[in-house]
């Protein structure tokens, strides 16, 4: 039997009482419970309210919360793996040539200036700024119908600060030590670090594009 709009609304409000903060999971639980209640009412004499409670109880004690936490964990792990995979790609054949060229260019251009640190600072803070722009740009995909989108939320938590803070720290170190910045060895090290920093940004950007693309395909069509 099909539930009517008032019954579906009751289930929506019932689920909302369990504080499911993510849109995807809320919709998935809602669909499951509606299906389950419809089947229970079609095959037994159980009243509607009892059928709803039974359907929810099938998720187990604290079931929604446990599933929510598990999903956050598996998604965080997935994004970290994907990010590392993309970043590693920049240091493997054939992309490593681009990375090497970038590092050499940083070294050569930096050496042309009286204070080479400035060029590297521009690259590091530039990568950081671009990452911040990327975050702001994707803010519009953070919520659907006033509910957080799990994918975007986990993505921000995993990378929002992960990309910006190390760059900021490195930038500060460079700035602090700028007076001693003359030796070719130090310049080589910082050229490599600037390259890693920039490639991290590119990896972050690529992954963000994938995540947003998937969200758009699923929930913004």
């Amino acid at each position, binding site marked *: 039997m099909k539930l009517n709009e008032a019954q*579906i609304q009751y289930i929506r409000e019932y689920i909302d009482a369990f504080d499911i903060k993510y849109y*995807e999971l809320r919709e*998935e639980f809602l669909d499951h419970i509606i299906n389950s209640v419809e089947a229970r009412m079609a095959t037994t004499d159980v009243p509607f309210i009892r059928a709803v409670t039974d359907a929810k109880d099938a*998720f187990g004690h604290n079931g929604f919360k446990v599933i929510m936490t598990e999903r956050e964990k598996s998604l965080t*792990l997935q994004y970290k793996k994907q990010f590392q995979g993309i970043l590693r790609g920049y240091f493997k054949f054939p992309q490593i040539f681009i990375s090497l060229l970038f590092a050499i260019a940083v070294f050569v251009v930096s050496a042309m200036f009286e204070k080479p640190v400035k060029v590297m600072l521009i690259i590091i803070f530039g990568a950081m700024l671009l990452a911040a722009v990327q975050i702001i740009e994707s803010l519009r995909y953070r919520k659907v119908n006033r509910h957080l989108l799990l994918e975007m939320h986990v993505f921000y938590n995993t990378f929002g600060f992960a990309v910006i803070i190390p760059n900021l720290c490195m930038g500060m170190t460079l700035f602090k030590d700028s007076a001693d910045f003359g030796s070719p060895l130090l310049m080589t090290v910082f050229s490599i670090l600037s390259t890693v920093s920039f490639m991290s940004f590119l990896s972050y950007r690529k992954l963000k594009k994938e995540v947003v693309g998937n969200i758009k395909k*699923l929930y913004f069509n």
Partner: protein
Amino acid sequence: MKNSQLYKGSLNTIIMKLLEENGRMYGYEITQKVKLITKGELNITEGALYPALHKLEADGLLDVEVEKVDNRLRKYYKLTESGEKETVNRLAELEEFIKNMQSLVSPAPGLQF
């Protein structure tokens, strides 16, 4: 889930096998299909099903599609290309396991404990 400890390790393979046969399915449909096939002997709980589906999705073995059904969203799961390959491997492993268990439970004459 009946005899949950015995079935626990095979849950992912059961899900993947069902998706291999049915193309795409949603959560509730999977629980009902399992109940139907096993004539009610095996009941996959929601608390076990969804973490398993989400983990398979995170591992890149499942892909999702979302459709509007009766004015609400329904999330369908289907195997990815690597999921299809993995299903073949896992089913072979499971068959091997069942064969070994069968040998242990009913040993051939002359091989009894």
